[in-house]
């Protein structure tokens, strides 16, 4: 009778105490495995991040140059200033400047790189040929990156002809 009670007791301990513990332990082991995998990945990621950031900090001074080449916003006043300033340096009369925002560069959603936006400027000017050529050269080599898309030279007049021309320039900026 005592043996039977002990066997029943053993079965009771197994079914009501050990079995739930095993289920809970199974869950905890899964959680531990996931935590350890996360820790390992996280550790690697943080180490890599710190390595990259420390390398970036050694070239952080370049940031100001990059901000000039492709500014972090449209900065239209600066663009106007540069286009007009270069024209003035080359004795060019600027008749009008029009700005137009172009469509954004497409990028994949997972990409870390922020896309760049484009502003198009149409500059109507008049000057002699040499000044025009110098102006175009100055735009091409300007610190803020600009690409000349079209140049339309219309007929000048007189013995020392003044050319009227329209330059379409694209400038770029970093989007948010």
């Amino acid at each position: 009778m005592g043996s039977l009670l002990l066997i029943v007791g053993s079965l009771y301990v197994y079914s009501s105490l050990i079995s739930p513990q095993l289920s809970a332990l199974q869950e905890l082991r899964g959680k531990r495995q996931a935590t350890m995998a996360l820790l390992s990945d996280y550790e690697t990621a943080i180490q890599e991040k710190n390595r990259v950031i420390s390398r970036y900090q050694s070239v952080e001074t370049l940031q100001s140059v990059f901000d000039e080449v492709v500014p972090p916003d449209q900065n239209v006043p600066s663009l106007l200033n540069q286009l007009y300033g270069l024209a003035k340096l080359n004795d060019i009369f600027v008749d009008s400047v029009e700005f137009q925002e172009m469509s954004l560069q497409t990028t994949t959603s997972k990409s870390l790189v922020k896309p760049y936006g484009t502003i198009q400027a149409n500059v109507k000017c008049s000057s002699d040929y040499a000044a025009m050529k110098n102006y175009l050269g100055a735009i091409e080599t300007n610190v803020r990156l600009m690409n000349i898309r079209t140049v339309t030279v219309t007929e000048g007049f007189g013995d020392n002809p003044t050319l009227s021309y329209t330059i379409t320039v694209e400038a770029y900026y970093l989007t948010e």
Partner: protein
Amino acid sequence: MAENFPTQLPSGTSRPGIIPWKALIFSGVIFGMTFIVYLGLAFGYKPFIEASIANGEKRIAELDQTAPKAETEAKFIQFYSQLTNISSLLSSHTAVTPLFNSFEAKTMADIGFAGMAINVSGKTASMNGFARSYEALAGQLSIYESLSGISKIALSSARLADDFVRFEMKADFTPDFFKFTPAATAPIEQPIEQPIEQPASPPAATGTN
């Protein structure tokens, strides 16, 4: 009577009372082991795993402290984006001055230009101008055709007006012609064909040379 009472059990039978004791010990051992297993799981292995998880989570929290700040990360992303975009934009950076340099070097004195429309994206240029004669115009077209950056030159029209031949032409350029290179944008010091003076009093004329 006593002499008839068997003193030994017949062979093959066990003593009554021994089996229940053995069964009791066996079941007691089973019960004890079961209980020990439970205690081991509940107060040994489970706390160990829980401590292990807590330790992992603590390490993750500590790593958070050593991670770069969000502000630094944002700055780095901006820097990296600018670097990538500048690299991409520089690889497609264009220049139109090589066209003027080429035309200055290769345009004869008998030719003048009055207008020009350059399309860098389309890699074309439409020009109108004047020539002193049809021969001069034909000679000029053959020179342009031989230019390395020009893939095609087409004369759209040519007509005689006020002793000059007014013409319109279109040039198609090679894909890399407008590609920016520091050497290409530098002015040519010694033109191959030195342009001389423009034709006398062309009608409302301007020229590239």
